[in-house]
């Protein structure tokens, strides 16, 4: 029975991941073939805006991943819940993956539109970069440090550290000189956003969400199996000694 549950979760995870990946590719194709151009008078690099169809879904999914990391950090920090640690592991892995998507795609657009790839005064870009840095730190440390309560305590503290500090300090320092553009490209009367752009953006967000769900299931499953493996190895150690 247990085996069936594990296999079915794995298949569900792969199915979501496959669908999400396919959707992400379709989004990229649609962004060039279906989405309209923007007003060339209003933008320095009108074609560069198409990166938004991946940039925004990356931002959305990395936000969800960082939230998972935060919830896991609280659960481990406050109650040392094993599921909390699995969320820390999953959230940091996915936060790193999707966060890198944000901090790579953002500067590509910034270089074309602003003329500089990075703006240190920008709230969202910097916040995502710092949170991605925190996620990278946790991912690297999980690989380099021996697993145990002390390591988990410290890394969950780092998870909380990131969440406690990044938004607060970012808000405190950049509230009054934000440069990041809004998502409005071309307004239509009813939705506030060009319907074709909205449609492609929606497909992108849904696809990346599916990808995120699939990878979450697979990552969480791999950590669960790894924990079982470690337990079996420890039992084996006891038998050997």
């Amino acid at each position, binding site marked *: 029975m247990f085996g069936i549950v594990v296999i079915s979760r794995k298949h569900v995870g792969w199915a979501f991941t496959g669908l999400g990946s396919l959707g992400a590719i379709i989004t990229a194709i649609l962004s060039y073939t279906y989405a309209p151009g923007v007003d060339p008078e209003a933008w320095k690099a009108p074609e560069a805006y198409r990166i938004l169809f991946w940039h925004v879904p990356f931002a959305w999914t990395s936000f969800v991943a960082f939230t998972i990391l935060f919830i896991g950090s609280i659960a481990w920090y406050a109650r040392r819940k094993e599921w909390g640690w699995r969320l820390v592991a999953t959230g940091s892995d996915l936060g790193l993956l999707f966060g890198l998507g944000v901090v790579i795609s953002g500067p590509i657009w910034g270089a074309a539109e602003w003329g500089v790839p990075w703006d240190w005064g920008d709230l969202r870009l910097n916040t995502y970069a710092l949170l991605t840095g925190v996620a990278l*730190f946790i991912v690297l440390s999980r690989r380099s440090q021996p697993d145990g309560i002390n390591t988990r305590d*410290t890394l969950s503290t*780092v998870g909380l*550290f990131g969440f406690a500090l990044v938004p607060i300090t970012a808000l405190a*320092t950049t509230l009054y000189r934000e440069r990041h553009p809004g998502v409005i490209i071309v307004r239509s009367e009813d939705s506030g956003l060009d319907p074709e752009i909205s449609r492609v953006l929606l497909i992108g967000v849904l696809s990346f969400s599916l990808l995120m769900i699939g990878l979450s299931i697979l990552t969480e499953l791999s950590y669960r199996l790894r924990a079982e493996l470690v337990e079996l190895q*420890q039992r084996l150690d006891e038998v050997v000694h």
Partner: protein
Amino acid sequence: MEAAKLFSASNLDVYRGNRLVLSNIELSLNEGEVVALVGPNGSGKTTLLESCAGMHRMTSGKVEWRDDNGVVRIIRDFEGRRKRLPPMGLTLQMDGICGDETIEERLSTALSISGRAPSSSDLNQMLSAWGLDHRAVDPTAQLSGGLRRRLAVLCGLSPAVMSANPRAILLDEPSEGLDESARGLLVNWMRALAAQGHGILIATHDPEMIAASDRIVSVLEDGTLSSETQDCLAFAGELPDPCPAIEPNPLASHLRWAFRMEVRNPIDTISRLLPALISLLLIHTFVGEKEILASGNDFLAALIIAPAFISVLVAPALIKRYAEADCGRWWSALLGPMHRISSSFIGASLILPLPLIYISWLILGDTAPAETSQDVLESIWIIGLSLIDVSIAAAAVHLLVSDLHRSNAAAASLLLLILVWPFIELTDALTIILNDGMTFGLGMEEPFTMILLASLTSVLIWLVAVFLPDV
């Protein structure tokens, strides 16, 4: 009549890694007894001894110690409460000694933390008894392993030797590395201390030490304890007389220790100064007047602050000193919850940012507008002070990372990215000073407010890095 307890651990569960090493432990140490903790390698003797000193997080239970006024206080419990230990002696398995301190300094430090003010003849008498007096002014790095161990054991015993009040002494494998005469001396001193009412807990494999104890506590494979008493036949030796008591001030001792280490071997100053000066020289060499004038005052402001900012981000040398032979853990045990706070201050660069920012200004400030130059010269020290706040926050972040078992394998710089915020604030503030001169108004676009905001951001980062790990 039952002897008074010096400390007790109750219902203690402690994990090391993923393994429950101690399970539901009940242990106490009474006045006038020597207790030997025995058990095979990896059974948890060291963990138990260190847990009694409040050095480990626990998943259940508490450790309580009695102070000189007879008040019993929780030192550490599973809910994260932590208090400083009352005066006591501690010898860790790895000595806990930094190689830069001299032998006399080390002994003096161990005594001052426990509230004793020994004269130089008191120190000399103890060092002489342990065959260390001829090396009193040598750095401990020059000692052989055996002599270093003698010093570590003497430092553990000395707070009780010099005190008329009963003290608890925790010794982890004290006889390991000692020769026969030193082992004999150790047994004699332990028995003499017990006869004076002090309590001694030793983790040991040594049959000689076990024979010198009144009670043998075995740590069993399942993490529980079994205990048996015995009649001890070892002889008590002669001890030096106690010295005058002073009010213990571990923080002052810690500061003195760190200052001495840096004066003797200024690795912190050099490791901060060098990258700052190199960056300054590179800027001076490769960034010409034209580029600065073309890019504007915000570019100049960033260049002026950058060398000092780089210097404050460098990992404190204190962390390297702590890593030597468990030195940091020894301080952590004796300072308790104040250890992280104290270390973040004394590990920070408290002096360099000020001269560095003035040197930067003198070298790079040629291109600044003449009308505001005097203003910058007179007010740039405020930015230097704010960089000291940034340095304290950076030290706290480095200390947080140093909690990891393999902290050398962790990329602390990723967490330091957050300090870019105060750097941006300070750059903006200096830009405004360069453009319009210094003002002390509290509006959002005033330079003074921006400097204040940079300091407040640093304080916030410091608070989170210092208090979150120990809650």
